[in-house]
């Protein structure tokens, strides 16, 4: 039993995916166990909906299951799985935009069955209130995908700039300047709520 726990806790991701590639589904279970919470948080920050985030997370693990042989040892497993999850989350955002576009054209914007940017946190409506997690989340969702992605990876998931550059395939300098611009955009968006920040 102790060995069991040690195996679960101390075996590296890379060893687990290697074992899974050799047909050991228990290793897959352990990877799911290890990554489901960090990944749901990651995906949720893109989409702002737990249900949608769980769908995308399931799709992510299905990809892992199906495409396990695409993983090569040269990459860190975490980089690989976050890349898959991030791409799927962005695909979901694109789908939503298409749905919104279609619905508005089709139904004169009356249809509310789709997600549109939530303006319940409309800046004008609340000055000098506390900045809550929900307000921050809404501001993150207002960022364009390329800024959203880097701010989530950096400030919420805590990846290094180098890891992010690997994941999203852009040069390190670009990642850094995007993170900087994303932080400035968020500040600009929420500055009216931070008048008393000192």
């Amino acid at each position, binding site marked *: 039993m102790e060995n069991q726990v040690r195996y679960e806790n101390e075996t590296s991701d890379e060893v687990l995916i290697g074992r899974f590639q050799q047909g050991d*589904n228990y*290793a897959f279970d352990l990877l799911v166990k290890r990554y489901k919470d960090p990944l749901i948080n990651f995906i949720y920050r893109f989409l702002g909906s737990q249900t949608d985030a*769980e769908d995308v997370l399931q799709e992510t693990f299905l990809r892992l299951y199906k495409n396990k042989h*695409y993983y090569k040892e*040269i990459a*860190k497993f975490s980089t690989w799985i976050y890349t898959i999850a991030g791409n799927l989350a962005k695909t979901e955002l694109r789908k939503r935009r298409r749905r919104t576009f279609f619905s508005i054209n089709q139904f004169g914007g009356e249809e509310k069955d789709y997600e549109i940017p939530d303006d319940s946190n409309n800046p004008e409506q609340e000055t000098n209130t506390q900045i809550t997690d929900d307000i921050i989340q809404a501001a993150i969702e207002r960022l364009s995908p390329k800024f959203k992605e880097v701010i989530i990876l950096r400030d919420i998931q805590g990846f290094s700039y180098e890891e992010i550059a*690997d994941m999203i395939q852009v040069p390190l300098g670009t990642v850094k300047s995007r993170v900087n611009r994303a932080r400035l955009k968020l500040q600009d968006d929420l*500055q009216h709520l931070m008048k008393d*920040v000192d």
Partner: protein
Amino acid sequence: MNSCDNVKALFSDYIDDSLSAEQRAQVDAHTADCAECRMVLKQVAHLTQRIQTMSAISASDAFDQSLRNRIMENYATESKSSLKRSFTFGFSGAAVLAALTFFILSTFEGPSVETVPAGISGAAPKAQPELIRREAAPQSALAAETLKKDSLKNTPARVDQKIQLVGQDK
């Protein structure tokens, strides 16, 4: 670019404490004189700290089960039997175990059944001294073929396209 923009470009590194002493001094000097940049820097730092400490979301309790179901659905047709055989604790093991436990409990009133924690049941990992990595060529070729037909082909293994992903971190 005016000097405010130049200084603002350094804010992230300033907050992350990764500027050279010289650059740091440059930011300090500018923000000492420029109230606008001073305020922006303070707010960016505050907000960044808030974002970094937001409370995390967790997967729901139902997640594991629905993942299992989806995997079974997706793979049941191609390799049902091998799948069932190969699943360890969760995917078929837990269901069988649950059914069995229920059966035992409902048949014999009362005897305490020692339940095996999910995840540990049938699945003690065989001690394997070292990982022997195979060339997975045939399967990869097959997977690549499948993937071509996959409407979701844009997303998965971007990893394959790039070599510079090599972790310096290992």
